[in-house]
């Protein structure tokens, strides 16, 4: 089943020039797609239009069901009084009517999801008190609780230490094996190489296809421009951790 089908998509923030244009790609079950691009190049814009937050100014954008979204963990309010378990339970909100309490089964399932990402011991801790990697894992547990066929992850590896990163990659591989679709925006070209599809954007679509086809030197240069560095014949994207 096709989970995402986008053709000639143009989207923006409604104040004039489009933020992202010419996007055409498709994603099926059990596939993982890496979205590469520089800061401000449109990765988050793409995720937002897939979520339905931004208008489709031209072209078409079809998404199966309601995707689970793992935003950059720094965007949540860290001083808000919620525990890790509370955050995971938010994943059940969409399927529970407002007037009904969350069922016990949901709580059990939430604990199971936390266990799966290795965070069950911290279930009662305040979300804001956790480390970057731990917060990322809790957000993934939330996405898992949503039990959506499609997951959109916005730079899940940013600010995450090496050990957590390995754990995250393992979970993503599991989800792919389960037949879910994954769309992951990332700065790490090495990650992109291990998945099924790559989409390069920089205000507009630069390349799309399996890593071998999309990650050509030409495509990477068009995507990252000045931020490219060549080391030992391996091209590497160097992105500045933006100050603005």
């Amino acid at each position, binding site marked *: 089943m096709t989970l995402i089908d986008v053709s000639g998509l143009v989207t923006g923030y409604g104040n004039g020039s489009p933020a992202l244009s010419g996007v055409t790609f498709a994603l099926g079950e059990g596939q993982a797609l890496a979205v590469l691009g520089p800061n401000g190049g449109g990765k988050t814009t793409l995720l937002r239009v897939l979520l339905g*937050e931004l208008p489709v100014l031209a072209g078409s954008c079809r998404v199966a069901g309601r995707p689970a979204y793992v935003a950059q963990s720094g965007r949540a309010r860290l001083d808000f009084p919620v525990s890790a378990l509370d955050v995971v339970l*938010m994943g059940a909100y*969409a399927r529970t009517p*407002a007037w009904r309490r969350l069922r016990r089964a949901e709580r059990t399932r939430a604990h199971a999801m936390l266990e799966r990402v290795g965070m069950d011991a911290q279930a009662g801790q305040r979300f804001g008190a956790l480390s970057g990697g731990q917060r990322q894992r809790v957000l993934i547990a939330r996405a898992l609780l949503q039990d959506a066929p499609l997951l959109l992850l916005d730079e899940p590896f940013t600010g995450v230490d090496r050990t957590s990163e390995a754990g995250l990659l393992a979970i993503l591989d599991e989800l792919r094996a389960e037949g879910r679709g994954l769309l992951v925006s990332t700065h790490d070209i090495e990650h992109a190489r291990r998945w099924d599809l790559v989409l390069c954007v920089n205000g507009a679509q630069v390349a799309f296809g399996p890593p071998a086809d999309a990650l050509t030197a030409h495509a990477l240069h068009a995507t990252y421009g000045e931020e490219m560095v060549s080391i030992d014949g391996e091209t590497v994207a160097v992105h500045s951790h933006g100050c603005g």
Partner: protein
Amino acid sequence: MLELLDSELLRRALAEVVLLGVVCGPLGVWILHLRHTYAAESLAHAMLPGLVLASLAGAPLVLGAAGGIIAAALLIALAARDRRIGSELAVAVTVGALFGLGVALALAPDTPAKLSELLFGDPLGASYGDLAVAAGLGLVVLVALGAGGRALRVTAFDAASARSLGVSPGRTSGALLVLLGVAIVASVQGLGNLLVLALLVAPAAAALRASDRLAVQLRLAALLGALAGVGGMELSYVADVAAGPAVALVACAFAVLASLWPGRRDGVVRRGPIEGLAGGR
């Protein structure tokens, strides 16, 4: 304290302010979490023309409050759209103009409206009808807060992910502002439009400081709001001062005391004095 229960007048006034405290407390917690304090202050100030017109026409204050706040909300929303000068400035101008208009309407006629009661409240002037209306409106607010708890939680904590969780942050914020309007309308008789902010912000600020758990914050704010009502009425009786301001003062005292309590410091960013005051908008 029992002397407050002596006369019917005092009993009614006490019931009024305690009720308002219980309603505005939890509402205030959400106002603080969603950062709507400026909107609260603005709506309360800008509704004055409606109050004055009702008072001059001899109409029920609640109607004037409702009309005033709807007009204020529309104008403020319009003003906030202006891209050139930014919403804070546009809202400040609109609020100032409307408030000034209200004062002008109150003071210009030959028999001026009782401006000080409209501004600072008059719980002792509350009738059973006023109390009933306040109770009804208050109930609406509390029920809505309960039903909307999940949406509010998501909107406050992680608006970016809200859509994927089945919540519309825009609609949730809008609904909270409507509830704010309802609460202000209910509180105008007891506290006046200038002081209603005290019950909205102060008990909630103290509760946020005292506890790290949302459920506790909500209940604590309601309790502190009620205590502010009781304490304020007692202060008013004992020291022979106006009741509305006394309640506001006790509420603010709770907040200030809570803030002085040595507490956790969650790694605050150092900012220059004006960035701090301008709220990093």
